[in-house]
């Protein structure tokens, strides 16, 4: 049987990849995908912990995270469409009307 810690390390690596991609990527869709990656990394930790504790609440949590991620995708893509309509680009460097 695979120990729980393996899952946790994998989840931490996935989460870090998500954070790194969020900071590095310039395309809005890619940034959005990196957020989804972060959420799914967390799902893995929840399932692993639910297995460790022999509980179902962690797995229920995962279902709700999926639902929330889907709702977030709906709102997020709508905002991205609004951006594309007003500027014809999906590069975040050109979304710079307001600055510090």
């Amino acid at each position: 049987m695979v120990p729980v810690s393996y899952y946790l390390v994998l989840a931490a690596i996935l989460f870090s990849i998500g954070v790194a991609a969020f900071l590095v990527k310039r395309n809005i869709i890619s940034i959005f995908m990196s957020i989804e990656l972060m959420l799914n990394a967390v799902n893995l930790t929840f399932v692993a912990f639910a297995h460790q504790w022999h509980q179902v609440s962690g797995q229920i949590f995962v279902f709700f995270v999926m639902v929330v991620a889907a709702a977030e995708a709906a709102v997020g893509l709508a905002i991205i469409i609004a951006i594309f309509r007003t500027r014809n680009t999906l590069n975040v460097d050109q979304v710079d009307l307001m600055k510090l």
Partner: protein
Amino acid sequence: MSGVSYFALLRLTLPQIALALGAFLTLTLDLTVLRRRAQSTRFLAGALTACCGCVAAMLLLACASGQQTLFDGMMVANPLTRLIQMALAAFAILAVLLSVSSQFTRHVGEYLSLILFATVAMMFLAGTQNLLLIFISLEFLSLSLYILTGFSKRSRASAEAALKYFLFGGMSAGFLLFGMSLLYGLTGSINLMQIAAALGGPALDPLLLAAIVMVVIGFGFKVAAAPFHLWAPDAYQGAPTPSAAFIASSSKIASFFIFAQVMMLGLAGAAGSAGWQSYSSGWVMVIAIVAAVSMLLGNLAAIAQTSVRRLLAYSAIGHAGYMLLGLAAHTQQSLEALIYYVLTYALAAMGAFGVLGALEAEGVDELKSLGGLSRRAPVLSFCMFVFLLSLAGIPPLAGFFGKFYVFVEAFRAGSGELLWLVLLAIATSAVSLYYYLRVLKQIYVVQPEADAAEAIHTPLLHRAVLCVMAALVVLLGCAPHLLLQWIGQAMR
């Protein structure tokens, strides 16, 4: 938990149900009966139905009494949560009334119902002690706020603000969720009380420290504390003004309340200390650092701003620092002071944005264009005067007592170990007086520009609401015990 009592659940969520029904009713009426009417009629009728929903929710809350906990802490009702929920419903009414005369959208029903849905989410957020429901309602709230930010569809700034808010919000949700999953892994429970019981013990697991940092990052984004504030100035500046007023006030109340709940209930055993030379690791230290950075960065960056809304956004970051000071003290009294502070702050911030909303039609956003406003709109100018001085913390106004109580309670907690932070807070609030007075100087001292000398007309309702809010700020400043007694009774 043997049998699931759906009747009890129904009774406990009646206020939220009433509010959600109000939202659906507003939407339906606007899309059917009022469809072809003039914009102002639609806004007035919509606001009326929305306000009915809020008032119904407030009445239901006022009638309820006692303490109740359902489903393993998923639904909690006690006098304190009811107080917060009532305040949220009241702020929803104010937000709805302040947006009645605005012109930024033709989708009136959607706009008003989104404000109510966001309020429903905040009411769920205030009445739970369960990580799952905290996450769901926080996301429900955030999604509504993203849409409200990007609501003026043809504006480039609005879409940009919504994008930045959405991307940073999504990332913060990831961090918060990761922190929650670690807490679940450490304790095997998603109930705050059981987490606190399982964590008891002086030794801190490194994994717990990681969880604390993640949770603070997640909530830090939501309350716009530095260094996680990057979305706030853009969202406040780009969003339609009524949305910005709502984001700056209501969501602050709910986020701070649940932040305090998670920290003070769930992580009660892992507080540590943030004394100047006697610190021990725990969440108080993390909060104290975030508070110090917020106070410094918010107040110093506000000085350099030329847009009034950006200035208010940076000052909000500074205020988040003061509120975190109340959280870092983590005593019952400091929580009381924090609630008083966040309520009075929300009132003044919403008022200031309300004044800016009234001026929006005149194209006023830059600090310069406020020149000579006192001659063009004396009533609005006086309201702005009251709100800004309350935010700055000038004695006879509500903001002063908020700051005073938070600072005093932070000093008292743990025999003065937070003294360094209190001193920093006092110093930075002296700095904040400078930029608030800069705005007031533009309004009262500077001559109006030659091409903008005629008087500004604002709708009567808008002016009346602003005057009531200004009167409340003065009243709560002259008689702070009115609200404090209420909060104190609710907490006992």
